[in-house]
């Protein structure tokens, strides 16, 4: 066994002695099985097709440690990460550990449960057993196996039949330095929307300092019949951090999912988003925006699995690249023979603002049904000349035009966020981030049609 695998085997033993004690036996069995998958596979290499453009050696090499408890983070930090002035349902985790101190869960509407997974084992044991690790297979992806081996805490959301929550639930994950060794958090979230429920979720990740943490997340979402789930992920961890998440959405008939991913943080960030369209006439919208600078690498791998007939899926991912950064997009749409009348559209557009930035994009279609309409498109290029000419004829300088058009480029995808509160939340972060990167306050706020 390699040095790296030895490290994780030792880590697992330490973890078993403290963290793991809080959960049921069956979870422990899953953990042990997942660990052996992980140590068998090891970290992925660029020789594997799924990891061709993303080298995770820096993650494999760093001796990340599991910490049994989390350091304190200041209240001001938490406040600065909230969704504007809006009142919200907030659950906070620090290095993967639930923080009751910072969470605000007093005013949840009837039918909506938001708590940490460890607490939920007591109240929702059967539900958890029925869903946990059912959608995220750990035999394929080593990071999912690693996460599963270390399943401990995370957010648990349950929206009972017909529950409609008007305010978004904010899942806030803060990573912070803990001792000398870089800290790892293996966060496990479970979101269950029962029949006819409607939930909106902000799924956000931030760092307390300029810290080198590993945040390895697996999130499983079960969208029941005719439910609506909107999940907006905001990943703005430190540019030294490593972030990996595998998000699995399983959709029942006539449900609607709206997933958005904003990724601006991390030295290496990998987002895998798989949607299983598990019932007829379900709808899926999967969108995202990544902004990379410095030497960041942000990778999105999406998988849209059409199993049943008559389902539309829409996918738009846009990227803005600066400096020596890199972005990877791999979008697969897979249409099973039974999924007739699938209507699927996927687009990936990348704006290169630097000659040293690199984009690798690979939109894939695998179609086994004939009565379908599937399209995909990908584009990579610099600033659009016609657009910038228009601005210049109005007296706007080259530099300002660049900023304005970059904001416009981003806005085209943030407008896909359905919930106005969440959309504003993302828009503000995007513009603030671009202002910082462009080194000017002189960028417009985003407005939508």
């Amino acid at each position: 066994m390699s040095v790296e695998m030895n490290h994780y085997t030792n880590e697992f033993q330490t973890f078993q002695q403290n963290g793991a004690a809080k959960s049921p036996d069956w979870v422990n069995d899953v953990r042990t099985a997942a660990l052996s998958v992980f140590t068998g596979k090891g970290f992925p290499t660029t020789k594997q097709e799924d990891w061709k453009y993303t080298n995770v050696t820096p993650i494999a090499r760093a001796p990340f440690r599991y910490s049994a408890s989390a350091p304190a983070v200041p209240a001001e930090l938490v406040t600065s990460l909230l969704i504007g002035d809006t009142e919200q349902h907030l659950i906070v985790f620090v290095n993967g550990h639930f923080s009751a101190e910072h969470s605000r869960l007093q005013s949840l509407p009837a039918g909506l449960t938001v708590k940490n997974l460890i607490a939920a084992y007591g109240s929702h044991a059967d539900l958890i057993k029925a869903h946990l690790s059912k959608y995220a297979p750990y035999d394929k992806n080593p990071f999912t196996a690693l996460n599963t081996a270390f399943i401990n805490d995370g957010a648990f959301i349950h929206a009972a039949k017909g529950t409609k929550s008007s305010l978004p639930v904010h899942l806030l994950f803060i990573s912070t330095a803990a001792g000398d060794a870089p800290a790892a958090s293996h966060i496990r979230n479970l979101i269950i929307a029962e029949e006819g429920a409607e939930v909106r979720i902000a799924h956000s990740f931030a760092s307390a300092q300029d810290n080198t943490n590993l945040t390895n997340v697996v999130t499983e979402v079960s969208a029941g019949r005719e439910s609506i789930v909107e999940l907006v992920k905001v990943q703005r961890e430190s540019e030294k951090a490593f972030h990996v998440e595998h998000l699995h959405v399983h959709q029942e008939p006539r449900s609607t999912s709206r997933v958005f991913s904003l990724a601006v943080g991390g030295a290496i960030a990998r987002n895998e988003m798989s949607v299983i369209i598990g019932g007829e006439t379900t709808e899926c919208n999967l969108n995202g925006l990544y902004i990379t600078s410095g030497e960041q690498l942000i990778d999105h791998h999406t998988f849209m699995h059409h199993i049943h007939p008559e389902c539309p899926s829409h996918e738009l991912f846009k990227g803005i690249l600066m400096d020596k950064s890199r972005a990877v997009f791999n979008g697969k749409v897979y249409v099973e023979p039974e999924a007739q009348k699938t209507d699927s559209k996927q687009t990936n557009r990348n704006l290169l603002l630097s000659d040293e930035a690199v984009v690798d994009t690979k939109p894939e279609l695998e179609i086994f049904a004939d009565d379908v309409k599937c399209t995909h498109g990908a584009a990579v290029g610099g600033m659009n000349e016609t657009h910038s000419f228009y601005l210049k004829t109005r007296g706007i300088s080259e530099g300002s035009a660049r900023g304005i058009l970059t904001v416009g480029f981003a806005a085209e995808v943030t407008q896909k966020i359905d919930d106005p509160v969440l959309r504003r939340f993302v828009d503000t972060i995007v513009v603030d981030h671009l202002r910082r990167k462009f080194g000017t306050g002189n960028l417009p706020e985003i407005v939508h049609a």
Partner: protein
Amino acid sequence: MSESIEELVSQEYKYGFTTNIETDTIPPGLNEDVVRLISKKKNEPEWLTEWRLKAFRHWLTLEEPRWPNLTYAKIDYQSISYYSAPKQVKKLDSLDEVDPILLETYEKLGISLTEQKRLSGVAVDAVFDSVSVATTFKETLKEKGIIFCSFSEAVQEHPDLVRKYLGSVVPSSDNYFAALNSAVFSDGSFCYIPKGVRCPMELSTYFRINASNTGQFERTLIVADDGAYVSYLEGCTAPMRDENQLHAAVVEIVAMDNAEVKYSTVQNWYAGDKDGKGGIYNFVTKRGKCAGVNSKISWTQVETGSAITWKYPSVILQGDNSIGEFYSVAVVNNRQDADTGTKMLHIGKNTRSTIVSKGISAGRGNNTYRGLVSIGKNATGSRNYTQCDSMLIGNKCSANTFPYIEVKNSSSSVEHEASTSKIGEDQIFYCKQRGINTENAISMIINGFAKEVFKNLPMEFAVEAQKLLGISLEGSVG
């Protein structure tokens, strides 16, 4: 139009006959002695024998690629005969000396080797199993300084040119099948267009596999010197046999400053029967290098045959302002598998590439487009446009699209668009309402779908290709 459709729907694979001719075939099996024997039979110079052996030794270290989206029985490389030639050892002085049985074979294939019968616009090099049996219009071309002959002849007559360019675009170590070809290649065509010469006629190679249990490993090398132009056509057929036969060819093209090469293929190897029995395994490496400034290489292919197709005609855009093009129609029916596409490697500044790929899947066919567009750091101001459309006929087939796009500078732009859809029911209905039957309607619609590619084929080929498309899809509608 409707007449030709009627004709085509009533046809089966009409090139499936076998020619009975005495052959010189070496026993199956592959080792260094076989490589030496092939080289000796062809009276090759020492350096070429060594080149083959080096390739063979490298091949032994490689594994057959498993990444393509193809399903086929394991190939037993020791059960194949690597050399088969019609017995006709003495060198021919004129076409009149070609064995009449062979001439007849090519007549049956619609390729007359008798010059007076040929359309004056096309010169043909006919390759029968492992050897070139005839090359037409050599003299006419010679007047312009154009060299067009079999590869074997080029090795004897123009060794310096062959040595300079052989392996310069597809190195013998390039991939599994290219290494195998480099070790055992038998014959093929060689073409050199000197500086400033515009080749006055289409050059064409016609490949025919006849013998059973043999593989065909031809090698084509085309060099267009500064300011030269040539349009090159390739056709292929094989008899209907129950066992699978291996075809692993290599085509190399070099275009120097301001040169242009247009390479068109209509690939109609035997595809196997309805149940997937027999057919050619076609593993081909085709690559062009735009070595000079303002050079252009254009690939046009119509792929209707073969049980298995593995083929990615590519262009290395090295010279500034060079242009690469790839136009492809690939049809799979019955149990055919095709994994085909292109690579456009932008290295020079202001390089341009266009990819138009039309995939048609029917029966239980499995069609995959696989492509790479790579824009290097120094390839500033470069452009690529890719359009990839797939059409599905019936619900037991599949269509896949795997484009890889890698961009490393901000002054370039890449645009990729792809779509997959069913053949238009309302279009079929419209045709039927006008009295056209379903199969003819499909034929018409398919031809319209592939028109962008056909228009890049030389006239004669385009007609042939349209007919072929109909034949390949015959019986695809239940």
